């Protein structure tokens, strides 16, 4: 049986290998040799690494593994990530019942029928962005002109945040999600962003609109500061993830022309295609973190109270036992069991919206740009290895 005294296998996060779409080889190797193993973190602290699909589901659905980032032993991937997780507490880093109380103020906002009702509006935004991108031009950066503005515009609309402030909040988001940002930089970005949202929330008290911030104000259960922190979480989580997933999906499809041709010919299959892309790309690439609140045995390994656990969902999403041939992209696969949105009660709140945006984004791009191709050699594409959310910094395309 593994014990806490074992020598760490490597320092997390490990370096990627030759394929930029695949998780670093060290994780898949750990999955085969020692699926629950010891690693060390940036500051030398030890943590458990969990790599198999079954074991990760067990950890993420077990309330004895805490999401409370203020507990001793909680693992972080960088000093900045520790500041992000502990500087302003949101329900993302809380346990039930407090987590459930806060999350349930928002679950109605992202339920299937409510999100589905947004479809015409999201389609309109996607078409307008592509109109502007292709107007008199035959090349451009998909990230800047489409992948980032699409979910940004949508989350602004839902929250009641003015989109004209996008340079400001996108820059804050970039700092918050950088593994290379210092504690001071992260704290500064957090403060600026939450101050902005607090001012906005205050304004909603006198001039309410039809957005989530106004509805949270109207509930009367949260302070302006609490609404500001919640708004900050939704604003950043609401656009960085889908933006990166959109651009990375387009790149993965361009590198798999048979899959791209299949989706272009069968746009009605886009929902399944998006699930497979979520599995294959798993942009939450440094894993999901928990700390054991008491001693728990998982997969035959005893994890002691106070020990950190990193659930490597990117490795689990290629676990051969769940997804045979999982290193390949196969849009006809039933990939719905993937863990790209996590698992358990913390599973992504906004996933119906992410699915809608991705389905519309991919089908609209493929339908409207039949000659779509990469405008630079694949080797020159800059991947976001240093960011908490994986993707590409730019995606220069021609059409």
């Amino acid at each position, binding site marked *: 049986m593994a014990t806490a005294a074992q020598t760490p296998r490597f320092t997390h996060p490990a370096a990627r290998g030759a394929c930029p779409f695949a998780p670093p080889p060290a994780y898949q190797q750990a999955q085969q040799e020692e699926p629950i193993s010891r690693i060390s973190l940036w500051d030398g602290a030890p943590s458990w690494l969990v790599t198999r699909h079954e074991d990760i589901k067990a950890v993420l659905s077990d309330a004895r593994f805490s999401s409370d980032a203020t507990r001793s032993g909680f693992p972080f991937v960088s000093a900045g990530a520790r500041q992000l997780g502990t500087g302003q507490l949101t329900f993302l880093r809380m346990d039930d019942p407090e987590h459930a109380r806060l999350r349930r103020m928002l*679950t109605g906002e992202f339920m299937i029928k*409510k999100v589905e009702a947004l479809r015409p509006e999201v389609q309109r935004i996607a078409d307008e962005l592509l109109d502007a991108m292709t107007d008199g031009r035959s090349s451009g950066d998909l990230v800047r002109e489409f992948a980032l503005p699409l979910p940004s515009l949508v989350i602004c609309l839902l929250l009641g945040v003015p989109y004209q402030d996008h340079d400001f909040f996108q820059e804050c988001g970039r700092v918050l999600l950088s593994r290379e940002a210092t504690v001071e930089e992260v704290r500064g970005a957090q403060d600026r962003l939450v101050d902005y949202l607090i001012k906005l929330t205050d304004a909603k008290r006198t001039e309410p609109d039809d957005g989530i911030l106004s509805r949270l104000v109207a509930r009367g259960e949260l302070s302006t500061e609490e609404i500001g922190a919640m708004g900050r979480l939704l604003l950043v989580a609401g656009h960085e993830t889908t933006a990166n997933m959109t651009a990375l999906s387009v790149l993965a499809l361009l590198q798999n022309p048979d899959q791209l041709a299949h989706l272009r010919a069968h746009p009605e299959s886009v929902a399944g295609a998006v699930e497979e892309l979520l599995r294959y790309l798993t942009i939450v690439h440094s894993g999901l973190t928990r700390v054991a609140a008491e001693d728990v045995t998982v997969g035959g390994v005893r994890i002691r109270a106070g020990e950190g656990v990193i659930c490597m969902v990117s490795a689990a999403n290629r676990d051969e036992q769940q997804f045979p041939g999982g290193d390949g992209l196969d849009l006809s696969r039933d990939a719905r069991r993937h863990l790209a949105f996590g698992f358990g009660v913390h599973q992504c709140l906004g996933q119906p919206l992410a699915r809608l945006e991705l389905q519309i984004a991919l089908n609209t791009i493929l339908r409207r740009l039949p000659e779509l191709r990469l405008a630079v050699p694949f080797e020159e594409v800059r991947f976001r290895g240093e960011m908490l959310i994986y993707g590409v910094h730019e995606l220069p395309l021609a059409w």
Partner: protein
Amino acid sequence: MLVHIDQEKCCGAGHCVLAAPEVFDQRDEDGIVVLLDAEPPAELHQGVQDAAAVCPAAAIRLERV
């Protein structure tokens, strides 16, 4: 097949509505699961099993009858 739901456990992720919209819905006020058909016909069983399998909060329990 008998379907049981646990509204206390539900986290409103919405998988069940995608997998079996004839059997599951979400409450308007908070997106928590609502059971539309506790004893669905055979042709819906696959969808219901999929819903139970992907539910992140283990809020769906199936009973053979």
